[in-house]
C-alpha cells in the first residue's frame, strides 16, 4: 500500500486568547488520511476548523497534540513543503509584478533553476489559461484571473499535493467551471488535491472523497458516492413517461415488494443551465455558446 498523501493522527489545536490565555479548541482529535491521486473535499461551516487543519498541513501552525504527515514526512519540514502547492482563499499578490514575473518569482523561491524557469512558467500559465495576460500587471487582473494566477503559482514547482482554499470564492460560474476543469486536469496528471470550498455542487462534481468537520471534530468521511447514497432507494430517469406507465410500474414494483415513492419532473442544476445558456469557458473563447 502506498504512503498516503496526507496522514493526520489525533490532531488537536488550541489557541490562547487574550491576556488571560483562555483556551479555544479549534480542532479536536481529528484523524483522517488522503490517498495519493485522490481529490478530497474538506467541508464544514465557518469556524469548523478547516483553515486550522489546512494551516497545520501546510506547516504554518504547530499542532497542540497529534501529528500531520505529508507523504510520510512531518508536514512542517522543508522537504515536505517541496511537495505541496497552496492557493489561499482570496489570494492577494504583488500588484506591481506581471503574471509572468509573479509565477517566475515563486518558481525561483521553490528552487527551479533560472534556465528551466521560463518554460515552466509558460507551461503553467498555459495550463491556467493566462498566457494571453501573462505580461499584464497582476493589479489589473479580475477576481477569476487572480484565482487562476494563484493556481499557477501553486503548481509551478510541480507539487504532488495541491491544497486549494476556496478557489472559486467570488468567481462567476464560467470561472468556477474552468477551475473545476483544472482540478480534474491535476488529477489526470497524478496529483492529489485537497479542496476546501463552500460551493457544494463543485465539491460533489470534482471530489472523490469527503471529510466533513463541525466544531473542530470529524462528523463524516468517505467516498462521495457512498456518503450521498440513500440506503435502499434508486432513481430512474424515463423519457415520455405517462400516467398509464406509472400505474403499470407501480403494479410491477408491488409484485416485487417494492414501492414507488414519488415521480418528479427531471431538473437540471442551475449552474448547468447557466453554462448551457452562456457557454463553457472553451465556447466563450471561441465566441460560440
Amino acid at each position: 500500500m502506498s504512503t498516503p498523501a496526507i496522514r493526520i493522527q489525533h490532531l488537536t489545536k488550541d489557541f490562547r486568547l487574550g491576556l488571560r490565555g483562555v483556551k479555544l479548541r479549534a480542532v479536536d482529535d481529528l484523524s483522517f488520511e488522503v490517498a495519493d491521486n485522490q481529490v478530497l473535499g474538506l467541508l464544514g461551516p465557518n469556524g469548523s476548523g478547516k483553515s486550522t487543519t489546512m494551516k497545520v498541513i501546510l506547516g504554518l501552525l504547530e499542532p497542540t497534540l497529534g501529528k500531520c504527515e505529508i507523504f510520510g514526512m512531518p508536514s512542517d519540514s522543508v522537504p515536505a513543503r517541496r511537495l505541496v502547492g497552496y492557493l489561499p482563499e482570496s489570494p492577494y499578490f504583488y500588484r506591481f509584478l506581471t503574471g509572468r514575473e509573479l509565477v517566475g518569482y515563486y518558481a525561483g523561491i521553490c528552487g527551479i533553476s533560472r534556465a528551466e524557469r521560463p518554460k515552466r512558467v509558460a507551461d503553467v500559465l498555459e495550463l491556467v489559461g493566462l498566457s494571453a495576460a501573462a505580461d499584464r500587471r497582476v493589479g489589473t487582473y479580475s477576481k477569476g484571473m487572480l484565482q487562476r494566477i494563484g493556481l499557477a503559482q501553486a503548481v509551478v514547482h510541480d507539487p504532488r499535493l495541491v491544497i486549494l482554499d476556496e478557489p472559486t470564492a467570488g468567481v462567476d460560474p464560467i470561472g468556477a467551471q474552468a477551475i473545476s476543469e483544472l482540478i480534474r486536469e491535476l488529477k489526470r496528471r497524478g496529483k492529489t488535491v485537497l479542496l476546501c470550498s463552500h460551493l457544494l455542487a463543485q465539491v460533489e462534481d470534482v471530489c472523490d472523497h469527503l471529510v466533513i468537520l463541525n466544531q473542530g471534530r470529524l462528523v463524516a468521511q468517505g467516498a462521495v458516492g457512498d456518503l450521498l447514497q440513500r440506503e435502499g432507494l434508486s432513481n430512474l430517469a424515463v423519457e415520455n413517461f405517462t400516467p398509464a406507465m406509472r400505474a403499470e410500474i407501480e403494479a410491477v414494483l408491488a409484485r416485487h415488494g417494492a414501492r414507488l415513492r414519488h415521480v418528479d419532473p427531471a431538473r437540471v442544476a442551475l449552474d448547468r443551465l447557466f453554462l448551457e445558456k452562456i457557454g463553457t469557458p472553451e465556447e466563450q473563447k471561441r465566441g460560440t455558446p
Partner: protein
Amino acid sequence: MSSSLQQIGQIGRLTFLEAVRQRFFNFLVLLALALIGGAGFFRQFDFGPQELAFTANFGLGSMVFFGAILAVVVTAQLFFSEIENRTALTLLAKPVRRWSFIAGKLLGVALLMLVFVALLTALLGGYLWWRQGQLIAIRHQLFLAGRATTEFPDYLRVHFDGLAVNALLQWLKFVVLAAITMVVASFSNTNMYTVAVSFFIYLICQLQYIARDAWANVESPVLQNLIWLLGVVFPNFQLYSVGEMLVFTTKTPVPAGAVLAAIGYSVVYILVFYALAVFSFLSREI
C-alpha cells in the same frame, strides 16, 4: 544552504522593488533631496567662511532625520503588508524557512536604505564640491587683491572620503534601526504599535548617553548594573554622530580604528536583533 541564500536574495529583491514603489519612500526621498538641494539658498544669508560647514550639517541632519523615519516606517509597512495581505502565507507555505523570510525582508530594507543614503550623499557631495570650488576661487581672488590674508583654509575644506565613510556609518545605523523594528514587528499585531515602539527605542538609543553621563557617579551597584545592561541592550546611536568630524578636519580627527569598531559594533547588533526577530517569528501563528 545555497537555496536558502537564493531565496533570501529573491525575497530581498522583491521587498526592495515593493518599497521603492511606495509613495511614502518617494515622498521622503524627494523631501530630503529638496532640503539638501535647497541648502544653496542659505547663501542668501552671510555665513562667511562657515557656509560649507553649515550646509554640510544641514544635509547630514536631513539624512539622519528622514533616514530614521524611513527605516522604521518602511520596515513595519513591508512586514505587515506581507502579513495582512496574506502573501506571507503563500510564501511560507513554500519551502521557505522563517529565518530566510526575515533575512530577505531585512535585506530588502537594507538595499532601500543604501539607495536612500547614496542618493542623499551624492547630492550633498556634489553640491559641496561645486560650492567649495566657487568659494576657493573667490578667496583666491581676494587673496591676490590683498583683501584676504590667507588662501581658503584647510580646516574648512570638505573631506569627500570622510563624507563617504559617514554615509557608510549612517547606512549601518539605519540597518540596525530596521533590525530593531523587525524584532518589534515579529511579535506585534499592528503596524502602528510597531512604529510607535520602534521610535521609542530609537529615542532611547539616541539619548542613552545622557543617562550614562547622569548616572556615571551612582554608587549603587544595582543601578550601575542596570545602566550597564541598558547600554548593552540598546545600541548607542551617538557613536554614529561623527559626520562633522569626518567631513571637516578637526583638532581630533576620527581614527580609522574607531570607524572599524563602529562597523563591527553595527554588524554585531544587526546579527543579534536579526536572531531575536527570527526567534520571535518562529512561534508566531500566521
